């Protein structure tokens, strides 16, 4: 039987198909309950107006503060010299996204039409479904794209397998799955597997469909390390209001956004920025490190102090990739828990065997180069396992202590998959985690 994650997806799909959505007419026909009298609405509107006015008054000083900032016309630039490569992650990181992906079957049987998914926007799901119109429980073809390095046999619930060649690639036919699904799987490129799954269709038909599948991989997105920067002094000089002692940290917009929640949606997350502040100032100024343009200000509350200064960091990570202090600020240790963080790639983390097969990552836009922070929490008590119920009649694992591993996508911005693969268990964490080479250095 397949992993629970895949079964849940099929279960939810089936349940959703079995019920009609709520429609507007149904809503309009429902009897209103406890509708508020109009005078309450007027009162609420008045309160809202007052709040808006007060908010404006509060916000205004900040706006005024920003208007006194002047930008020098011609900033001098400096390139941060390359530091020792050592164990650090690559100088520039390029990852493949789902943007631009295409999946299309050229050889569907007559009468089959696309009923679920979008061939030009596979998105996180990576699944297309084709069925014939009408009839109860009609034949079905599912096309699935996986970002995975798992053996092909694990991508299907079949009980018997035999090798085939699909479009010149080694593939596998799986049969014997509950419900009579026959699946043809093949690896079309390193880390990308395609599966054609046929329901109520003979193997020859499914193989014909597989031979006619066209797949276009997604576009790539680069996280750079080196670009020309204005100097720290130039950055500080951009902010006339900070005449006293001040500091400037070189980082990227993506990292600032991750730590502060503020968004500059029109700019790339890899945009290098200087974050300039005075020690006691309530806010810091964000300056485009390439042009010297002031981009705005952010509150200095909490996590902003975790920004790593890339101009002095010992081990360079690409801009837009969270550093150790930044990821620990976002995922702080619970009291009483020992937390360690190592950066690695999805491929290397997968090799440890920890992480439940990266099923969530398989559903999203992950490729082999995705940098992940592996956060290992260990506790002397059972806090990570105490909610796990054992099957009836079987004792729970009562080894002393418990552990939890969360692997989070280290990237920021639109490429961030919101990946958070988690494993947990009783006793000590798997030894394989200790062998992970930390790409972020000490």
């Amino acid at each position, binding site marked *: 039987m397949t992993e629970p994650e895949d079964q*849940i997806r099929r279960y939810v799909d089936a349940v959703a198909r079995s019920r009609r959505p709520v429609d507007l007419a149904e809503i309009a026909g429902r009897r209103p309950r406890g509708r508020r009298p109009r005078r309450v*609405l007027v009162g609420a509107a008045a309160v809202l107006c007052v709040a808006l006015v007060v908010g404006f008054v509060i916000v205004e000083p900040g706006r005024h503060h920003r208007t006194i900032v002047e930008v020098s016309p011609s900033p001098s630039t400096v390139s941060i010299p390359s530091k020792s490569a050592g164990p650090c992650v690559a100088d520039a990181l390029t990852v493949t996204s789902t943007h631009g992906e295409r999946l299309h079957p050229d050889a569907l049987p007559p009468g089959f039409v696309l009923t679920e998914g979008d061939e030009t926007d596979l998105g996180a799901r990576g699944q297309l479904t084709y069925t014939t119109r009408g009839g109860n429980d009609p034949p079905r073809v599912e096309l699935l794209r996986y970002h995975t390095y798992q053996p092909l046999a694990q991508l299907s619930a079949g009980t018997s397998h035999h090798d085939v060649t699909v479009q010149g690639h080694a593939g596998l036919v799986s049969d014997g799955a509950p*419900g009579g699904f026959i699946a043809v799987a093949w690896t079309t490129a390193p880390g990308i597997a395609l599966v054609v799954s046929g329901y109520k269709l003979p193997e020859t038909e499914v193989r014909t469909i597989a031979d006619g599948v066209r797949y276009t991989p997604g576009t790539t997105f680069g996280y750079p390390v080196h670009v020309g920067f204005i100097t720290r002094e130039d950055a500080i000089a951009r902010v006339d209001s900070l005449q006293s002692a001040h500091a400037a940290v070189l980082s990227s917009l993506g990292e600032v956004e991750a730590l502060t929640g503020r968004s500059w949606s029109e700019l790339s997350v890899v945009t290098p920025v200087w974050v300039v502040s005075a020690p006691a100032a309530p806010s810091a100024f964000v300056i485009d490190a390439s042009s010297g343009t002031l981009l705005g200000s952010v509150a200095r509350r909490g996590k902003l102090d975790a920004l790593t200064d890339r101009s002095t960091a010992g081990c360079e990570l690409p801009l837009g990739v969270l550093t150790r202090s930044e990821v620990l600020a976002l995922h702080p240790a619970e009291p009483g828990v020992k937390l360690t963080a190592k950066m690695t790639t999805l491929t290397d983390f997968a090799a440890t*065997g920890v992480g439940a097969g990266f099923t969530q990552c398989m559903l999203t836009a992950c490729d082999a180069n995705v940098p992940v922070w592996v956060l290992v929490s260990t506790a002397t008590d059972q806090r990570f396992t105490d909610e796990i119920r054992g099957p009836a009649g079987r004792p729970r694992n009562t080894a002393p202590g418990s552990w939890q591993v969360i692997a989070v996508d280290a990237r920021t911005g639109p490429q961030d998959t919101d990946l958070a693969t*988690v494993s947990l268990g009783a006793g000590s964490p798997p030894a394989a985690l200790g062998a992970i080479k930390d790409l972020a250095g000490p």
Partner: protein
Amino acid sequence: MDDDEGSDGPEATAFEDFFARVEPRLRAALTSLYGADMGREATAEALAWSYEHWDRMRSMEHPIAYLYRVGQTRTRRLRRRTGITFAPELAVPAPEVDPRLGGALAELPERQRVAVMLVYGNDWSHGEVAALMGITTSTVATHVARALEHLRRSLEVAADDGA
């Protein structure tokens, strides 16, 4: 929504847009909480509430999270009467699904079930689930992990992590 508004006015259009955007996600969330039938009923109730209180809803930043709670509140009496907490689909019309899955999902604590069903069944991000429940993404990840661990044991699927 005001009674005297024309059904084809800009407000009606705005509500239709809102409805089209919110309904599938709200139904997914409430179905994960209560099962398909009660989830659908709670969705309809919550959306009816949003129709009645459109003046408030249209400016709300996280309407799904709000309506998720409205749906719970508005079906409380019905749920008490029927005794439904989560009604699993015991005969799922889907191949490759273990028939024990529905029961195993029903055994999960509520938050674990909603988290794991939204993440894996509906492709919600951890951040979206966190916003729905008002918890952190780390907590969502923990709920998901615990739920999967339970499901693996219940369905007797071999874990690959030695847990």
